[in-house]
């Protein structure tokens, strides 16, 4: 791989590049799914290629190719140079990179069981058993299960001397049960919607999730939702489970803190951010109980945003984002760090694969658990009236990340400290900072889980990235509930 990088970087240097980096990536994926007792999908895929990113005449160029012959590599390097020179035709200033010490390093996801070592037969056997359990519940009309495994080996070389070899594994597993009556489709998912739980782990994740043990309950809840009352409309207290709070963090904290959005670089597609630079260390983002970090380090946990180095060779870091409610940090890169007066990148530049330009992505954006011991059951017992909302069903937020609306698969009425009747079609909406300032309780460490969001879209051409979100159930006061069905 070093030879490939040398071919590309030498040519770039000779033709006038002031900076260059090369990523060679060998990616492998396996996807298995069942639907109503039959195979839904069974596929293996691999993708191998490289890209070169250069600065010439003060502007960026990038080219990627699946041709790793010397001629192919040098042609891509020449194209990247040509593109950079074209970029320089339309610029306001030269690109400046924050300094970063070159490193030579190896890093691998701690993976107890290589997921590709588990036979397809064993995987399909598990999915078939879950599927059978879901379908055994009367009036379940559709059952879907899935397992997904990824392995990505990357070699990174820069003209500054970095040489980093990383191997990342990730696993996803989950299922859904649907029930259709004459005029209503209801759905329950486990352990989360959108493919279940995803982490940077091996097959051990599948074993930890207790998938089969929960299948009957999930199927029964999907059917029971038809008989449940509609979630009431009004302003009230809500309790969000950890997975829903994880998505709430993703949309209303994770995206607005991306410095490229703040600086207008995503204005045409993903949008901008209400978090203008004047708000750093000045905005009261949330209540005193809100402490959020962006933490890509392994010690934070096996999130989809965990790595050794980002895709421009910056080591994984932990950045305080919200500290006791005060907004304290952005997600940054070497190009954008100067905008916030930082001397170094926050290490968040990542690419979907070898053929995509790395851009600022969420790492693990997590709310820290409450310090006082508090279980979900204790939180419920401490609540007079509320709706407990579990498992995301719909999600939407405006392009500056102020106004959001979420729906969940199921709700529960909380009254006088007890969980009472099931509620269907719960939804809530609000304005980001008002919402986070209304948090008045969050459960402690034993309820905290690092959830994975595997499908975050951003960039042009669009890139899909996995992000991590640690969260524990939390309570919010005076929240608008039920707008999703208002007027329909």
């Amino acid at each position: 791989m070093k030879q490939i990088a040398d071919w590309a970087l030498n040519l770039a240097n000779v033709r006038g590049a002031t900076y260059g980096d090369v990523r060679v990536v060998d990616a492998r994926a396996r996807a298995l799914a069942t639907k109503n007792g039959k195979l839904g999908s069974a596929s293996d895929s691999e993708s191998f290629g490289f890209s070169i990113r250069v600065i010439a005449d003060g502007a960026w160029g990038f080219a990627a190719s699946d041709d790793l012959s010397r001629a192919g590599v040098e042609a891509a390097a020449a194209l990247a140079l040509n593109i950079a020179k074209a970029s320089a035709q339309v610029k306001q200033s030269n690109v400046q990179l924050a300094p970063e010490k070159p490193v030579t390093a190896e890093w691998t996801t701690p993976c107890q069981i290589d997921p590709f070592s588990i036979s397809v037969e064993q995987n399909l056997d598990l999915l078939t058993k879950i599927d059978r359990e879901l379908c055994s519940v009367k009036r379940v009309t559709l059952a879907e299960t899935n397992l997904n495994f990824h392995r990505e080996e990357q070699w990174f070389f820069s003209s500054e001397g970095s040489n980093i070899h990383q191997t990342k594994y990730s696993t996803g597993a989950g299922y859904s049960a649907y029930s259709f009556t004459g005029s209503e489709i209801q759905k329950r998912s486990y352990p989360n919607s959108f493919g279940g739980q995803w982490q940077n782990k091996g097959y051990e994740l599948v074993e930890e999730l207790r998938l089969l043990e929960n299948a009957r309950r999930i199927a029964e809840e999907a059917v029971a939702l038809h008989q449940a009352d509609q979630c009431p409309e009004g302003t009230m207290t809500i309790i969000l489970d950890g997975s829903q709070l994880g998505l709430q963090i993703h949309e209303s904290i994770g995206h607005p803190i991306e410095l490229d959005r703040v600086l207008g670089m995503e204005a045409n597609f993903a949008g901008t951010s209400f978090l203008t630079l004047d708000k750093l260390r000045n905005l009261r983002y949330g209540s005193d109980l809100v402490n959020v970090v962006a933490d890509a380090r392994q010690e934070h946990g096996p999130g989809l945003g965990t790595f050794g180095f980002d895709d421009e060779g910056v080591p994984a870091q932990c950045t305080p984002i919200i500290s006791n409610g005060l907004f304290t940090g952005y997600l940054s890169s070497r190009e954008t760090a100067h905008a916030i007066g930082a001397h170094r990148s926050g290490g968040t530049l990542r690419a979907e694969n070898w053929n995509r330009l790395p851009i600022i992505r969420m790492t693990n954006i997590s709310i820290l658990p409450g310090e006082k011991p508090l279980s979900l059951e204790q939180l419920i017992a401490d609540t007079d009236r509320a709706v407990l909302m579990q498992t995301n069903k719909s999600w939407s937020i405006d392009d500056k990340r102020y106004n959001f609306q979420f729906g969940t698969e199921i709700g529960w009425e909380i009254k006088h400290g007890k969980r009472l009747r099931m509620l269907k079609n719960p939804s809530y909406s609000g304005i980001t900072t008002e919402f986070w300032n209304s948090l008045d309780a969050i459960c402690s460490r034993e309820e905290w889980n690092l959830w994975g969001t595997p499908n975050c879209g951003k960039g042009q051409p669009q890139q899909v990235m996995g992000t991590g979100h640690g969260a524990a159930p939390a309570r919010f006061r005076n929240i608008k509930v039920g707008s999703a069905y208002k007027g329909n």
Partner: protein
Amino acid sequence: MLDQSRAGDIFSKICKRSSADEVEALFYGGHSALTRFANNTIHQNVAEENYGVSVRSVFGGRTARATTNKLDDASLGRVVEAAESMAKVQQPDPDLLPMPSPAEAAAQRPGSDTVYVLPKRHFDETASITPQQRAEVVAGIVAAGQKHKLTTAGIYSTSQSVEGIFNSRGVSEWHRQTSAEVSVTMLGSDSSGWQKANSPNVAHLDPETLAQIAAAKAFTSARPREIPAGKYTVILETPAVLDLVGFMFFDFGGLALLDQRSFLNNRVGTKLFGDNIEIWDDVAHPLQSGSPFDGEGVRRERVQLVDRGVVKRLVYARATAQKMKGSEYRDKVGPIGTTGHGFPIPNEVGEAPMNIVFGIPRDPKTLEQMIASTDRGVLVTRLWYIREVDPYEKILTGMTRDGTFYIEEGKVRHGVRNFRFNQSLIHLLSNVEEMGMPIRASGEESFDMVCPPMKVRDFNFTEVTKF
């Protein structure tokens, strides 16, 4: 560039290595480039070349797929082995059909009115655009914004791509095309405007006009005022229409009905929308794009999905058509038969119409005429972050974005703060008062289609955001 001849040679190698009853290879790839700009600067500028093959093996009712972008002999051997080993361990599926023969894939099916020649979709002028040419266009867009003291952001992309399918029964289909796309956002201090267009032929794009319209929207919507949420007559420009209606077309697949996850369950043959709604799927339409065959190599038919507001028929992959004919729904779903809309097998979705063409309205109106006939309403340029709230009533939520205006007494009065909506698609398509001429439209939440701007009464805005 991978061509049909080389792909055929690769498929021969795959067949030699295969021990399966049947084998199929899908080829994909191409060259693409995208120049991205923001803050009046080209800040990302990329190019990519990549080709791959996806092999499907079948052993007695069992099938699996493996994909690689390494086309050397050893990798082809490995990908065949991967597909075969995954297929062999499965339980046989009695519904899995043999791969189609060339005659079956290309057949003129009973009841079909598909007799077409696909329009030219590969243009050398598009394929040969250089980074310097893209930069010159971007410079023009930036200059147009600077005239009005606006900041520009957007993209200019070009690509050429191929897709092909071969199977061991003799199917051999190939398609190549080009694509060019321009998207422009103009930003003022408290407002923005947006435009986007794409075409296989770069000569059909007019970046200068797109920039001027986006700029006009930005400065016209400056100092937006807040008006209360509620039900309004709205005029939805074509990107807003396509991003909404795009959420319903996966429900027009036969398998969605069989799975009981479609909002059309118990509704095919009923009058669901207004009399003025006619919708086709037509890959050969001159404003459409894409290949003329589906994921099994079967020719796509022209299908009328909605006739005068009545959902008339669904689309089918081969296996879904057979399953539907034997199901309890067979007398309630209109004509049943393969239409050439299947996705590559195995998959969980089945099929969907992806070349949507709305019918030409009896009395098409221009946008200006729609505004002039509106006493009180809202003009919507674009929508954002649309998601499904209720799958059977087809309630969608989302936001307006980049140019939302208040209309009073037939005139655009001023920009307004953006709204959140929660709107049933069924109600929306029942409340269309006027439509324009369908054009090739491009949004961000759905696939491109040929659709009209619409004037819709009682559109349900539920909240207002802060800008």
